[in-house]
């Protein structure tokens, strides 16, 4: 029942984002294809790596050869193997940070939008203060304070998402909170938890999922930036952003060690943006159809 229930509510939330409709547009198709390519490399790459990503197998910065198709890095490790193994971390960290950000923003937005008491207002002011911080500065301060670790990185990136998501959710919740169906639930004595989860949340999610792709892109870039600055993942971990940072001194001698991971990060963000555009497009169309229906007498 609970699984079926989850599937059912999931279907309801995502219903307007018909995958078919996303795939019908050119941008959607290109985005999905690119994203799939990068994801495949990140997920299945480690199985195809010819060498261990951390083993020193050649001279530093050697040019591509039959043995090392993309050459070696500053310590003499195989670049191809490190590229194949280094995608997972960026994607995992960025995704978990985004999901965490959504959960936090959604909770705060729903609570403050529905319960407009003193506590709610105070919470929103804190959120506003967070919004005023430059995110990269915030992450650097956090990393220096808590020490560089993937967990701190995920939490930090998630926190940078929370204020804007919370504001959008709060605005949408304020609109919905006095609809007849919510009042009917209040009048029959439903708990706040039920009202937020079953009556309000399904009607505000559309608004925030429209920018899912943009947020994912943002997370990827932030995670990559912090890793590049050396305040996230630590060597000898294979990671695309870390690779750019490590090998940038050899850019003139052995550009592949920098260009290939850089290109993959770029492709990933482009793919996210394309898919996001296609989703927003399909949402926009369906939202329009919904209002036409809604106003029909």
């Amino acid at each position, binding site marked *: 029942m609970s699984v079926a229930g989850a599937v059912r509510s999931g279907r309801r*939330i995502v219903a307007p984002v018909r995958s078919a409709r996303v795939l019908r547009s050119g941008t959607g198709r290109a985005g999905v294809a690119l994203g799939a390519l990068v994801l495949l490399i990140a997920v299945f790459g480690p199985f195809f790596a010819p060498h261990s990503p951390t083993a020193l197998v050649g001279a530093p910065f050697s040019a591509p050869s039959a043995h090392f198709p993309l050459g070696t890095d500053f310590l003499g490790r195989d670049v191809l193997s490190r590229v194949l193994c280094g995608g997972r971390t960026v994607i995992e960290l960025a995704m978990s940070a985004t999901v965490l950000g959504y959960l936090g923003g959604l909770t705060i937005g729903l609570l403050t939008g529905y319960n407009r008491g003193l506590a709610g207002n105070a919470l929103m002011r804190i959120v506003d203060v967070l919004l005023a911080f430059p995110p990269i500065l915030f992450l650097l301060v956090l990393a220096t304070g808590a020490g560089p670790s993937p967990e701190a990185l995920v939490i930090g990136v998630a926190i940078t998402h929370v204020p804007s998501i919370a504001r959008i959710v709060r605005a949408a919740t304020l609109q919905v909170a006095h609809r007849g169906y919510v009042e*009917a*639930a*209040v009048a*029959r004595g439903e708990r706040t938890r039920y009202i937020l989860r079953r009556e309000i949340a399904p*009607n505000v999610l559309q608004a925030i999922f429209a920018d899912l792709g943009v947020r994912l892109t943002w997370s990827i870039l932030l995670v990559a930036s912090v890793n590049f600055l050396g305040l996230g993942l630590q060597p000898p971990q294979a990671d695309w952003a870390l690779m750019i940072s490590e090998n940038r001194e050899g850019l003139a001698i052995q550009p592949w060690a920098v260009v290939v991971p850089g290109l993959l990060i770029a492709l990933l963000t482009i793919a996210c943006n394309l898919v996001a555009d296609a989703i927003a497009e399909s949402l926009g169309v369906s939202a329009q159809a919904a209002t036409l229906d809604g106003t029909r*007498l």
Partner: protein
Amino acid sequence: MTDRVLVARDLCIEAGPRSPIVDGVSMELARGEVLGVVGESGSGKTSTALAMLGFFRSGLSLTRGTVEISGQLITAMPESKRRLLRGRVISYVPQEPGVALNPSLRIGEQLRRMVSRHLPGSDAEQVIRETMERVDLPSQPAFLRRFPHQLSGGQQQRVTIAIALACRPTVAVLDEPTTGLDVVVQASLLAGIKRLQSETGLAMVYVSHDLAVVASVADRIAVMYAGRVIEEGPTKSIIDAPRHPYTRGLIAAIPDSRSPRNIVGMPGVAARALAWQGGCAFALRCEQRTDKCTVDPPFENAGRLHHVRCFHWQRTRPVTHDGAAVADGDHDARAPLLEVTELNAGYASRGERVVASAGVSFFVSSGECLALVGESGSGKTTIARCISGLHAPDSGVIQLAGTPLAPRAADRPRDARRRIQIVFQNPYDSLNPRHTVRDAVSRPARLLRGIAGPQLRSQVDVLLEQVRLPTTVADRYPAELSGGERQRVAIARALAADPELLVCDEITSALDVSVQAAVMELIADLRRSLGIGVLLISHDLGLVASVADRLVVLQRGHVREQGNVREILASPRDEYTRQLVSAAPTLASDRPWANGEPELNDGEGQDGARADTELLS
């Protein structure tokens, strides 16, 4: 017939190839005549009205037909020439003046623009002064310097009329000019329109969904259905002897405070021209349909100047006004189910405290229907919300079967929550768009009665049958249902709790008359079969007269009068009640505006802002 100022012939307006909105409408208007155009939503009445000005909303185009105004063929002109005629020869009074007036321009400026456009060289100030006086508005510069939001709804509508009439056009098209206004304001506005018309000899096309309102101003009435005129004739003839079964049904569906009777709904919902495949568009809802009705009926002569589009018009029964509408049960003898004592409530609006209930006391016995009646801002909705536990009162006691109720629903015992159920005004936001009908209806049964499993499934089917919906709607989402169907689902959701008191907050005000009648019939049936008490919140005295036992009249949070519906409507003691009763539109023959004007004030003290906050609350 030489004095025809407007002739529309065979108008066809389409939204695209083979999707007609208006199909073959012809109308004529003599100098000084008022033609009423009546129709429900989707009947094409507004498109027809705008076509008289040679205007078509975006996406619509005229595919056939002509409109001639004062001998000029407006449909054959280029747009630039039509613009010169609009406002000067034919003008338009839009629905919803709050939206029609430019919020950032002073009303004097809006009038001045009209005058300087069409009467250059004239003394604009003089013209404006005269026009303002004609519509009974102050013409002082101080008033003209106001912005639209500083006027009440009635005043705003008078301003739009003033703008339309400033250049003394020959024809005016009024599109639902009183819809959304309170009855008293509506009555005085209608009286004003009627007077203007007789003074200036203005010809008017008056478009409305409300047959009673149209009957009070029009000389002739055209009834539209699914983009066609299905009946046309002199007002008296249409009201007293309707020939088309739809017109008959419409008249039977209109509640009337003057001659209270059972209102009778029509099955189904109004057909749209778009969906219609030929033949009589009303056939699906018609009692007297035969096989012949699959062919287009001709527009036949059915009496002097009276035309009807029906094969079987001779078989249409006359409307019977059976007076015995109110089942006068002796409810007072029973112990009261709900008792409200000295209720004080209010809310803050724009930093001001609005009093919604000042020492209001009343009771509802089980099985009884009590109506709370008042205009916007009277506090009736807030009182309903207090009873349902949605609004905490400042003081006072609400008792259910002798037990005081907590102010908030969440603090009330489960059984108390079960026994009182509320149905909301707007069917478009009272159902969660993300829940199926089954989810919506089963939740109260599960939460408040503990029904679960297969029993719950069959319970939903039973409930849907009770509100006369096919059980197949159970798995649909609200967006797939019409307004009337949604309101039935909302009623089923309330019934799912097995309530003893049903609070109905203006449940039909967003619905078409024929659908309203069907929903009210349903409520009356449920009262009879389940014995539940009903607290009916309404602004419509006619509706109240046809269903309620007792009546409480509210004005700005104060009870003005309460007692038996019939007695109050027959001989209101209170001054305010008397105003409401005389202002209510009616089809009865002693129409108040037929001769002279009723003594009414516009209720200008009640500013529009208050009405707005009532809607928001």
